[in-house]
């Protein structure tokens, strides 16, 4: 994908979120960082020969939880999708002997090893959301989806006959419809492959915490194992605290997680669902049957919470260690490489000089 195409795509995403703030991520723009460690188990070591899991009893991890929109508000209003981007670091973090003002100015946020977050060689960025699958398979279809999801210039008044017609058609009423939802539903009528993701999105409830959702990496990863051969899996993070929702209408999930993290460690189990013959490993929009084998690969423990929003962290799904890759036919996975890199570059330009693409878009 060219830089210009990536730029077009980013602008298309930003148009879906009229409250997007230049300099923040076009989506998942409101976030909070947590740090901890991942302990892979024997099942993980049998499943993959990736040195990241084979050579270390524990791996340092940085996680950024986020909202699923491009609106970087200070509170997380309404039920929607959440994100969890996790970086498995390729080398351990070295604690620095003391923390000084100089180090803080140099960008060392919590007294340890400045620049460590930017080391991406050999690391693994696992980017996941609360949606079990993605909306579409193809880039061209994704552009159509973005166009359909753009809110209208002026809020459309719902025609008077729409509600009784929906009742006659036995359509489920939606209490918290957003502008742009009508376009998305019309898109889904022409693109049934988007239905599983949209059904999950429209059924989303307000989570009690970032720590009480499960997060799915929709793409299929190919894991090569030491004995030769490979398997395709989809990863999911499952919260040890369980999936829980709240009836509160709006909640500041960043503050909640920071407060929760001060009281207790937060744990997630990493599971892998294994593909079988006939499962599409190149289509992130197609669910795999629920009867597929599930493996537990290890435990994530998060115990470092500073309330940092992680805006300067540059995750990229293409940060893959040896032994893990994605099928070339998964078009959207490979498109994301350029899109994430371009977005990161724009954000950095905005932060450092206040200029760049955001000021032009």
């Amino acid at each position, binding site marked *: 994908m060219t830089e210009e195409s990536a730029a077009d795509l980013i602008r298309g995403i930003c148009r879906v979120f009229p409250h997007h703030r230049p300099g923040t991520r076009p989506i998942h723009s409101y976030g909070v960082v947590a740090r901890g460690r991942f302990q892979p188990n024997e099942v993980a070591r049998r499943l993959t020969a990736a040195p990241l899991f084979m050579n270390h009893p524990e791996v340092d991890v940085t996680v950024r939880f986020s909202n699923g929109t491009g609106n970087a508000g200070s509170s997380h209003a309404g039920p929607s999708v959440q994100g969890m981007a996790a970086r498995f670091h390729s080398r351990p973090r070295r604690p620095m002997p003391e923390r000084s003002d100089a180090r803080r100015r140099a960008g060392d946020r919590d007294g340890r090893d400045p620049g460590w977050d930017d080391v991406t060689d050999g690391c693994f960025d696992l980017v996941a959301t609360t949606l079990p699958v993605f909306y579409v398979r193809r880039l061209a279809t994704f552009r159509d989806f973005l166009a359909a999801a753009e809110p209208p210039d002026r809020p459309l008044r719902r025609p008077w006959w729409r509600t009784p017609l929906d*009742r*006659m*058609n*036995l*359509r*489920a009423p939606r209490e918290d419809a957003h502008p742009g939802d009508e376009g998305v*539903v019309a898109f*889904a*009528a022409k693109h*049934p492959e988007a*239905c*599983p993701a*949209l*059904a999950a999105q*429209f059924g989303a409830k307000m989570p009690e915490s970032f720590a009480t959702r499960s997060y799915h990496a929709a793409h299929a990863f190919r894991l090569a194992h030491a004995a030769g051969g490979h398997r395709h899996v989809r990863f999911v993070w499952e919260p040890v605290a369980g999936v829980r929702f709240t009836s509160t209408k709006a909640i500041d999930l960043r503050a909640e997680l920071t407060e929760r993290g001060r009281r207790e460690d937060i744990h997630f189990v990493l599971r892998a669902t*294994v593909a*079988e*013959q*006939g*499962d599409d490993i190149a289509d992130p929009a197609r*669910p795999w*049957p*629920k*009867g*597929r*084998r*599930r493996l537990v690969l290890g435990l994530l423990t998060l115990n470092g919470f500073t309330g940092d929003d992680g805006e300067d962290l540059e995750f990229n799904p293409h940060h893959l260690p040896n032994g893990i890759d994605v099928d070339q036919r998964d078009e959207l996975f490979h498109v994301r490489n350029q899109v994430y890199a371009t977005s990161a570059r724009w954000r950095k330009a905005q932060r450092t000089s206040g200029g760049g693409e955001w000021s032009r878009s």
Partner: protein
Amino acid sequence: MVPKLSSKGTREITDEVLVWFLLRIWDRFQPPRAPSWTASPAPSDNLQRTMNLIMPLRRRHVLRRGELLRDLSEATDMLTVGLNNVGTVHFARFLVVGRHLCMISVYDGELSGYIRDFIGTIGQAFEMVMKHVKDPPPRPVSEHPDEFIAWVAAHDAFQFPDERTDLYPELGRLRREALLVLRRNPHVQLGVYRCYPGYSAAQVRESLEIGW
């Protein structure tokens, strides 16, 4: 004295009456799609399948249920040995729920093969059970296997697909399709949890080294 309904209660009853009429109309002009089960190359699609056999009791008097309990107790050895010999059953249990005798099981393979194995190994136990069931299949079941399989399929609770959107691939129509299915099927399986999906009974026995 008739209790006064709250406005929420009134709304709920109004909705129920309206939906009752609407479903009759929609069922006439756009009945729900019949589920189509296609053979799958994926091994786990043929493993740990569920059967929820819901059989109306001929008589629910406590004396007759007592006789049913007695008959099942006397058939325990037959059922245990028979299911052990079938080898593809993870779990099976009998329940009396209201006016129905239910047999709930999890098995490997496809339904007609499962039932044929049943007939061959525990057909006699089923004869003992069938005399308590209203409108039973032709008996003895061992001499009417095809009719028995059809009868089982007709009394197996409708299984909603794991993915809601597999019921109908259009968001706007999904709820209506689900309501139409619920209207046609008084007994439904809403969902399944599997602790170790994708493993057959044989693989579990082998990994636990319990022999067969």
